[in-house]
């Protein structure tokens, strides 16, 4: 089949769409089969098909044993486990186990800051791999993508860590409270210039944070309906919010040297605050935030958030982001109506709690709808941390420990090469996969990254060496975990369900059987004999009868397009 026909089979022409809207269906005029199911509880079958789907979307690289464990209990237990509180992980350390997260900013810290930042990145990747059956690290990454800050801009590992710890502490917490905390978060104050936003007198406020607060973090941008009017807010509101937010500084940071010797944190300086009244537009019901003087000026941020969170659009915006993180990017009218709107209502009713929303979503008929299975393109972290986690390996070092930095760092670098550099998203909007219409998830995959994904999975089978550590998938151990690897047909069926969320076709399985594994038609059970001989007597020669073809098979299957899906 020609390349173009491939595409035309599923994608229609796309002309101009009438108006911008976050709810727009991203692709074309040709309707795709989507679902009309909503947030009503899922009551259908409960087998590894559903449990694999649930775990693939909520943790990195679910293992076979975890899938079987979850399948043995009901859906409510599975979601209960995923959403349960978790103990705090150990803090990241530097080389030789040095503790730095509470260091004072001195020459020694300044010189080592870059190193600590790299250790921090590797540590987080390690947590993703170490995480058990819990949604937490997926949510930490969600918030990192939502409040996207770049560590290379902030250049202070302590404040970057502190922000990451905030996301972990509030992973399933209250959204409004999180916005309050992130507004005063030292890393954010530096990244979006909050600490430079100065009002009063002739000072012109710095709008950087105020704009992103409205556009990205809370209510979100709607269609532009007039000059400077983005439906949900206007340029007037950006300017007014910037004035509300004047006066903050950051202590303990080399960015604000007047306060370098204090602990890391925000500081409100009334002398820099614009204490006049702030008039908002009709988008916010013409609210006036009364200017306050002296220390009272610091409470204006609460008035601002109260105003923003009184708008139902704020809940909808976050629910759409959660939907695109856990379900699919295509939000058509049905999804908007049957899923986003009721989830937003749950969020509003709970006072902006996140956990009740996820609890309903992950138990919903919509989440388990056939049409929502397998349509998520793995992020580089799903691929990298997920693949490292999913398969048994020759050694399984705890990658969150400083002792295993070299290996964890090599995986981190792979993620960065695949365009997901932890702690350094491309810009304040986060990764394009979660907002760029019409590409969305597809923006992860192109002619540069797809071959590199294949190169990475090849390396897991061939073996990765970093420092003194060597890591590889233990292919034989992995095959032995399957129920009946001696039967070549069952072997391929089980491998298929390990690597692909959707069924392989008979043609594909034939190709794997005869061309990749190299069996002979009508003599397939010759494999049974080879495998059993190896099991009874794993000599070098008998191992060589099974391992090389299995290595080839695994490498091939991990390069299949299906393995990129979750």
């Amino acid at each position, binding site marked *: *089949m020609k*390349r*173009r026909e*491939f*595409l*035309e089979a*599923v*994608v229609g022409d*796309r*002309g*101009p*769409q009438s108006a*911008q809207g976050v709810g727009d269906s991203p*692709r074309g005029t040709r309707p*795709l089969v*989507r679902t009309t199911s909503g947030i009503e509880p899922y009551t259908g079958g409960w087998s590894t098909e559903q449990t694999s789907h649930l775990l693939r979307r909520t943790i990195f690289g679910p293992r076979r044993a975890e899938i079987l464990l979850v399948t043995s209990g009901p859906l409510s237990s599975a979601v209960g486990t995923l959403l349960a509180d978790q103990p705090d992980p150990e803090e990241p350390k530097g080389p030789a186990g040095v503790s730095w997260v509470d260091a004072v900013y001195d020459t020694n810290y300044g010189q080592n800051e870059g190193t600590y930042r790299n250790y921090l990145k590797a540590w987080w990747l390690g947590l993703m791999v170490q995480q058990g059956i819990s949604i937490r690290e997926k949510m930490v990454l969600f918030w990192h993508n939502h409040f996207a800050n770049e560590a290379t801009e902030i250049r202070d590992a302590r404040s970057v860590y502190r922000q990451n710890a905030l996301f972990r502490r509030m992973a399933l917490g209250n959204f409004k409270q999180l916005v309050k905390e992130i507004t005063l978060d030292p890393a954010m104050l530096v990244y*979006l*210039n909050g600490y*430079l936003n*100065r009002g009063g007198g002739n000072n*012109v406020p*710095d*709008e*950087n944070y105020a704009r992103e607060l409205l*556009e990205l973090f809370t209510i979100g*941008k709607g*269609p*532009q309906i*007039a*000059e*400077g009017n983005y439906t949900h807010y206007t*340029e007037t509101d950006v300017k007014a919010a910037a004035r509300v937010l004047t006066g903050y500084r950051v202590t303990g940071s080399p960015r604000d040297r007047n306060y370098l010797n204090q602990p890391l944190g925000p500081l409100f300086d009334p002398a820099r605050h614009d204490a006049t009244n702030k008039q908002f537009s009709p988008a916010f019901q013409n609210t006036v935030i009364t200017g306050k003087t002296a220390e009272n000026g610091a409470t204006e941020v609460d008035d601002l958030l109260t105003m923003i969170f009184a708008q139902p659009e704020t809940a909808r915006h976050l629910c759409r982001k959660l939907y695109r993180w856990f379900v*699919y990017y*295509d939000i058509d009218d049905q999804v908007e109506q049957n899923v986003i709107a009721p989830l937003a209502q749950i969020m509003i009713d709970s006072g902006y709690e996140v956990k009740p929303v996820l609890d309903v979503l992950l138990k919903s008929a919509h989440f388990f709808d056939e*049409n*929502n299975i*397998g*349509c*998520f*393109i793995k992020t580089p972290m799903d691929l990298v941390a997920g693949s490292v986690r999913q398969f048994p390996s020759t050694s399984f070092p705890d990658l969150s420990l400083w002792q295993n930095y070299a290996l964890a760092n090599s995986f981190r670098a792979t993620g960065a090469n695949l365009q997901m550099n932890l702690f350094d998203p491309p*810009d*304040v*909007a986060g990764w394009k996969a979660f*907002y760029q219409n019409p*590409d969305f998830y*597809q923006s992860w*995959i*192109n*002619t*540069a990254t*797809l*071959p590199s994904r*294949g190169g990475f999975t090849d390396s897991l089978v061939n073996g990765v060496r970093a420092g003194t550590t060597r890591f590889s998938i233990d292919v034989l151990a992995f095959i032995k975990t399957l129920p009946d690897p001696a039967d070549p047909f069952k072997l391929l069926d089980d491998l298929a369900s390990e690597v692909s969320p959707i069924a392989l*076709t008979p*043609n*594909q399985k034939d*190709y794997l059987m005869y061309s990749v594994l190299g069996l002979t038609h009508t003599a397939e059970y010759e494999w049974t004999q080879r495998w059993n001989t190896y099991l009874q007597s794993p000599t070098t020669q008998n191992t060589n009868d099974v391992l090389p073809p299995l290595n080839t098979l695994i490498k091939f299957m991990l*390069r299949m*397009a*299906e393995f990129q899906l979750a």
Partner: protein
Amino acid sequence: MNRREFIRRSVPVTAIPFLLNGFPIRAYGRAPFLETLVAAASATDRVLVLVQLGGGNDGINTVIPLNQDSAYMNARPNIAIPLNEVLTLRDDVGLHPVMTGMKDLYDQGKLSIVQGVSYPNPNLSHFRATDIWLTGSESNVTLSSGWLGRHLEEEFPEYPDDPVMPDPLAIQIGAVVSFGLQGSAQSMGIAIQSPDTFYQLVSAGSSGGTDTAPQSPAGRELTYIRNVSIQSQAYAGQVKGAADKAANVSTLWPAQGQNPLADQLKIVSRLIAGGLKTRVFVVNLGGFDNHSSQVDTTDTKIGLHATLLGRLSTAMMAFQDDVRLLGVEHRVLGMTFSEFGRRVQSNASLGTDHGTAAPIFFFGQPVFPGVIGSNPSLTDLTNGNLKMQYDFRAVYASVLQQWFGVSDNDLQAILYKDFLQIPIIQSGVAVNVEDDPALPSEYRLYANYPNPFNPSTTIAYELPRQGNVSLRVYDMMGREVALVVDEHQSAGRHQVTFHADGLPSGTYLYRIQSNSFSDRKKMVLLK
């Protein structure tokens, strides 16, 4: 007329199905005419190098107005560049002091500046504004394809199976393909980080299933990934082959790793010189979102913005030197853009907030050199922001027609609207149809260029048959003001220069008549 239309109109009807089925032309045995055509197509291929300045470049401190001293100093007391240190291009316009390479290009006639480029109702979000620029949309319309993607799709509807285009149509240097290259159903471009690793990784690849994917969301994503896999394999050899054929020769390139834009442009130069027929290359330089510390506290000539402009200038100069030495300078046009300019008034943190209109640079031997448009007024503002002089889509239309020879009809299909063009390309370089070896298949009157013009402009037309030709110019009252052509002419492409000496500013019509054909178009004289 684009090449596709030309082929369709020129070859015997019976050959068309075979062409549309995508078989290589050479498989059809000796077909001298088609072979000539293919050779001509590759010989005349023009390249556009698009340089995206991410984050919103501060146009006012890049192309600095020298005619509004006090307004400039008043608006930007803490970040203004000392005017006596600006690199003067002409009395009223100068460049940031760090941009010495681009000043040299200007002096060599290889740089042009289009002032005040924006669009009605500008959007101040990075992300939405970037989309508007890349898709070429109105500010209140969302398009899901890019302006270059639509052009490439018009010209190569069979991509990626086009029989005469074995190479990628567009290449993004980097790991993310620009949205500007997005076609209606697929990206018309591919991404590569380095030609060598690209080849190694791809050649180790495998092809997965061959069955059609299911009609479901998962099937849609699967199909997309498979398609990328096939594309990578198809193009890896071509890209590697071109990269192996040429090496960078300029001594002006900065050391590897010092200037990310230069590193990207080095690859572009190598691939063009190596014979890759790719039409569009996209490169990026980010970091222009200078809300704070745009300038140093003690010296406004240095700081974040100066570093970035220095990189842009150095990279552009080295690239131009390289393509000149490699002998491909005549077919390479470069263009910069950024999602918006910045606020006229600086903020208290030595930076600038999001703004609107900004200048665009064109670079290369084919450019129509100089400064197009006037300095933006720093006092006549809309909400504190500069007013627009040129719609960015007028710039796109000019590039597409003057450089790629896109017809009026196709231009309409790509940009959804008519835009008055501005002179981007020197006259004489002209559109690609004049390179086509065969005679035109139909009558055609082209849009004049430059337009608006003062005092002269060039009008081109094509005649499929010889005959008497008249070309007359009328004012809007219908009065004939000039008879430009009135003679018997042979079949083929013709062009004449119209001099408007003595005529007042305004819109004029020009009308051609030959045999039973007639057509007319508008042009604007702007004195």
